[in-house]
């Protein structure tokens, strides 16, 4: 029988933070491909959670809620990233002498993993679905509910993402023989 929880039975913020940060961070990092931005997303998501925590009675619901927030914020980031990428291409094409700073070098090296590079090449729609499947451990129904799409759509997107990754890996000839 369902029983309504009393407010003091809700999980404490520290508890939620400790148990969910690894998942939320992993998802943020895999969607954005950048550790610093992943930290920004986590910061914003947990601040929002802190304000809303009275409405989320258990860790599972907090997890969906946080992942949904991360996904929403990451969408804004993705738009910005596309704009910056275009600007960067113009900048490079203008043939200006550009030297990478030490800090930039470290960030670039951190995201230099082949897998992350391959994920970055996926269209955002496919990347998010696959990341939620593989790194958040969600099933099709849960992913569909977070993204507001049907289970059938999730199924198609997961497959297309895998299909594209197979091609990318093959091109890199690193993993797939």
């Amino acid at each position, binding site marked *: 029988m369902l029983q309504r929880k009393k407010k003091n039975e809700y999980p404490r913020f520290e508890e939620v*933070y400790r148990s969910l*940060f690894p998942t939320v*961070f992993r998802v943020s990092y895999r969607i954005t491909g950048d550790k610093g931005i992943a930290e920004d997303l986590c910061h914003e998501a947990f601040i929002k959670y802190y304000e809303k925590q009275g409405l989320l009675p258990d860790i599972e619901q907090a997890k969906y809620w946080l992942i949904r927030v991360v996904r929403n914020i990451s969408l804004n980031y993705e738009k910005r990233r596309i704009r910056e990428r275009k600007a960067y291409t113009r900048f490079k094409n203008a043939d200006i002498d550009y030297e990478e700073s030490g800090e930039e070098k470290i960030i670039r090296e951190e995201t230099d*993993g082949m897998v992350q590079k391959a994920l970055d090449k996926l269209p955002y729609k496919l990347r998010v679905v696959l990341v939620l499947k593989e790194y958040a451990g969600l099933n099709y129904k849960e992913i569909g509910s977070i993204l507001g799409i049907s289970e059938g759509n999730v199924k198609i997107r997961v*497959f297309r993402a895998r299909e594209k990754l*197979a091609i990318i*890996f093959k091109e890199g000839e690193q993993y797939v023989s």
Partner: protein
Amino acid sequence: MCPDGETLSAYLDGEIGEPWNTTIQKHLETCERCRQRLKTLQRIDHILLEDYAPDYLESMEKVKRRIQITQVAENSIRPPIWKRKIAVPVPLGIGVAALLAVIFGLYFLFFIPQRNNMRLVRIKTEPLGSTEVQVAAPIEDIEQLLKSLDKSQFSKEVIIKLPGNSKFNMIGEPAIMRETEIYRGK
């Protein structure tokens, strides 16, 4: 017949219900091509999951400190009192609303009629017995009241209490004074 890529991918994720799950399982036992397709999908999953991921512990501490700083900052610049949100439990809200309704109800029941009484005239008659009768009527009907009292056979003395805040203006000459003057003139 071989399952399509989407179905095979969903089979890998354990998203195919029965009886299709068993059907695919049996098909894979006999179809080398589908086994290879499934293997490719499985390999991608392994690559994704076994990839190096940045250590989250450092970020966890960093973000925790940032959250604490944000909270301190937010607490130090609290919004002015009229902009603050106040959470009122539903039963308390209903209780307060009911109490206000009762107070206003009582106000209309007692105070408003009392205000109307200021425009009423209270008339006490002392009949032959010791019974006291109180009559209240609008001030506009005063003449009519007096007439009705005249008809009452028990009235001896009539006391008319006018509202305390009534103001009277002298218009014309009181009849009694005029009568006196007429008498003197005679």
